[in-house]
């Protein structure tokens, strides 16, 4: 099958899957107990007030009518208004999306690069002390509990040593000061990013290292590696030009999906570091039955994951010409 035909076929599949997700999401959120009003524990909210709010939010209508409006609005590009913020969910998501991408996507890319590099070294020195230490540290880091690591980093680097801000994405003192210029503000964001980035890096690089190491070990047993050695190529060339590109394929799948999921942020990281990303909004919207906001967050994740799968498949065909679907 030609690459164009393959992409076209996959796009059709993606559309069908997306429609299914659209429907399942609608049903699942409405099946969750309660509604946006039932959680307000305030005796001043009378049953009549609650009913009025329910009507204003359109939740008193039969479920199929709500579903009809939901589909119609979606295809018109209207994802709705958040029940709690009173603002279009697209504006809420856009204001958070950049923050999430800048932190989580950077963390995935950096940890993948480090993981691939170190995994390559570990496999090359199999059974030696370097391999033992790298594998052990990867396993330890991979199993660390993220909020604990985050709090320890904050305590050591921000509180005890004091070189970093405790939390947040920007310093109010700098951003509220009209004399602060663009570069100072940019440096401020970079400064705030270091600790959460380091935490995410530490948690994630281990898995890439282990995947790369295992894949490299398989590749190094291939005949063409033996041939390359027989040809008298240097170890460095064999490792970097012959083994590593072939061994990187499983890592690419993993990185592709991690990149896609990185836009959903991480509620724990965002909470501990008070990072204003999508993860916290997602948790808030689900736990408070804010259907439009939850739907929009999940749909965004769904569409990015589906498309990134397609990109990974196409990348596979490019990296390994033997692969054809």
């Amino acid at each position: 099958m030609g690459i164009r035909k393959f992409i076209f076929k996959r796009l059709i599949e993606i559309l069908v899957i997306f429609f299914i997700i659209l429907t399942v999401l609608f049903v699942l959120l409405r099946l969750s107990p309660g509604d946006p009003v039932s959680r307000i524990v305030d005796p001043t909210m009378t049953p009549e007030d609650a009913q009025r709010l329910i009507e204003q939010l359109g939740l008193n209508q039969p479920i199929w009518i709500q579903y009809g409006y939901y589909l119609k609005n979606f295809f018109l590009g209207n994802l709705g208004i958040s029940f709690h913020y009173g603002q279009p969910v697209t504006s809420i998501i856009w204001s958070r999306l950049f923050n999430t991408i800048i932190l989580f996507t950077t963390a995935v890319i950096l940890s993948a690069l480090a993981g691939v590099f170190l995994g390559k070294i570990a496999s090359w020195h199999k059974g030696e002390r370097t391999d033992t230490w790298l594998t052990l540290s990867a396993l330890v880091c991979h199993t660390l509990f993220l909020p604990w690591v985050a709090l320890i980093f904050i305590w050591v680097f921000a509180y005890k040593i004091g070189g970093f801000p405790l939390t947040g994405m920007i310093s109010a003192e700098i951003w509220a000061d009209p004399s602060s210029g663009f570069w100072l503000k940019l440096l401020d964001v970079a400064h705030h990013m270091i600790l959460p980035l380091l935490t995410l890096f530490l948690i994630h690089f281990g898995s890439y290292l282990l995947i790369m190491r295992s894949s490299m070990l398989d590749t190094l047993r291939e005949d063409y590696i033996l041939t390359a050695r027989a040809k008298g190529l240097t170890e460095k060339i064999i490792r970097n030009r012959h083994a590593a590109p072939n061994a990187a394929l499983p890592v690419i799948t993993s990185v592709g999906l991690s990149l896609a999921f990185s836009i959903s942020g991480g509620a724990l990281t965002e909470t501990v570091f008070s990072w204003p990303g999508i993860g916290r909004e997602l948790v808030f919207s689900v736990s408070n039955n804010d259907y439009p906001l939850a739907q929009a967050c999940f749909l965004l994740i769904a569409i990015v994951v589906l498309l990134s799968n397609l990109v990974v498949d196409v990348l596979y065909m490019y990296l390994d010409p033997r692969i054809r679907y």
Partner: protein
Amino acid sequence: MLKSKIIWFIPAIIFFLLPLSCAEQRSDPILKIGLHEEPKTLNIWLASDANSKRILSLIYQPLYLRAPDTLDLIPWLAADQPEFHPDTISYTVRLKQAKWSDGSEVTSADVAFTANLIKEFKIPRHYSQWKFIKKIETPDNHTVIFYLSRPEAIFRDRTLTTTIVQEKEWSQIAENAKKQKKPLRFLLNYKIDNPVGCGPFVLTEWQKGAYVHLKQSPYFFGKNRRIDRRLIGPYIDDILFKIYGTSDVAVLALKKGSIDMFWWGLQPGYLKNLQQHKGIKVLFNKKSALYFMGFNVRKKPFEDVNLRRAIAVLINKDFIISRILQGYGTRMDSIVPPGNKYWFCPDVDLYGKGLDRKERIKKAYHILRNAGYTWVVPPVDNNGHVVSGEGIRTPDERLMEPFEILTPPADYDPLRAMSGLMIQEWLRAIGMPAFSKPMAFGALLEQVKGRHEFDAFVLGYGRLSLDPDYLRNFFLSSNDKPRGWNMSGYKNRYFDQLANQSASEMNREIRKDLIWKMQKIIMADVPYIPLYDPKLIEAVRNDTFRGWVNMLDGIGNIWSFCQVKPVSR
């Protein structure tokens, strides 16, 4: 080569970034406050989350406030106490000379507009306090006369403490809303970027996800006035609200000096650490809160008042206070919190107070035995010794069916979840098949308040109003409906009669008598068993600002923000 570049690159970055970290420690007269979450909205009619309300409380102001020490109604935007005219069932309120933050005058038309807006749009959480206003007259710019359709006790304490909005700001929005298919939704969803209030502070900037910056209003009516014997400020120019997602980090920020106050109740676990830190002061205040166990009295076995009384005896509230709340709470024996001194009735049944475990079991056993309950193995043997009871039978001689005590999960509220578990054990000691079941908060409310499908539950109100009208709301027979506040399904005609009488009684002393009677009835019938009222633990830096005003529900009140000043002054 590459290695040496990296070695130089890392210190270079740290060198550039270090001065930024010092920016946070800059000492200036800005009061920095930590919030647990970002406010959701600045639209006062939509705001239902604590943090939006906190910020808006410094911008929009009511006619009357509560005094911090006596909780009496104090004229704030009003010039003096409201005048009641019984013949016309009307109140006259005169306004102080005041200005909105845009420099225009606060007039009686603004007050009338606010009332009409709430009534016309039936704004949730406000409408119930205004719906009985028949007519409003504004004879001059500083006098408002409210005509009530019927006597309403809550008018003074609830209606007059509602915040007032500016007609100029909201009239066009209201007009546009009326043209919409869903006017209320339009009004609630209207985005307010710069709220115009008449309070001590105005919004300067809201950097989403990071901070909210307020500065002192040049037009605040209270500045340099003496109200309730206090010389009102504010004495600070700016307030910066920062967001801290966890209490752990907020406590570190407080210790480091990044914030001067964390506007959120702290768990007792932080106390020792904070109290040892020089420069931090920990403050304790009572809350107007109620945490309780409720029963579904619509069905067996909890329709029986004797069973509820026996359970009230078995619950060791002092244990909950000392062990679960680590001593930072007050035992509750009535539905009205003891901190609400005027309305709290101390003369109610205290059930197991002062009894030890064996005495409790014996007392509960006697109540149940006299009511016709029997056991396979009674919890008190023939020699009068307490043993483990088994197989309790109801008066109709059936084995008691297992029942569930629903609680919020431990990650939502460990105190309530743990209390549920302890109650389960105390009830099992007498042979009751009780099972504590933590469940998601939304699901719990849906089951208890929406569908009424439950046996018993442990819930709470973190911030009850100071007017005790909630007592009527919680137990009035007509409020036993889906989403109604009578979650237990309690029905008592005499109580209803007293409750309705209390709602329309304008004489405070007579109303107090009625409210006390209502508390006694409820504590005799125990559809709810009040458990505890946790103490509010807050922490501030005492080396930067001073003058925080302690009050029921904590130091985060308008009096504090009008009194607090830098230590250097």
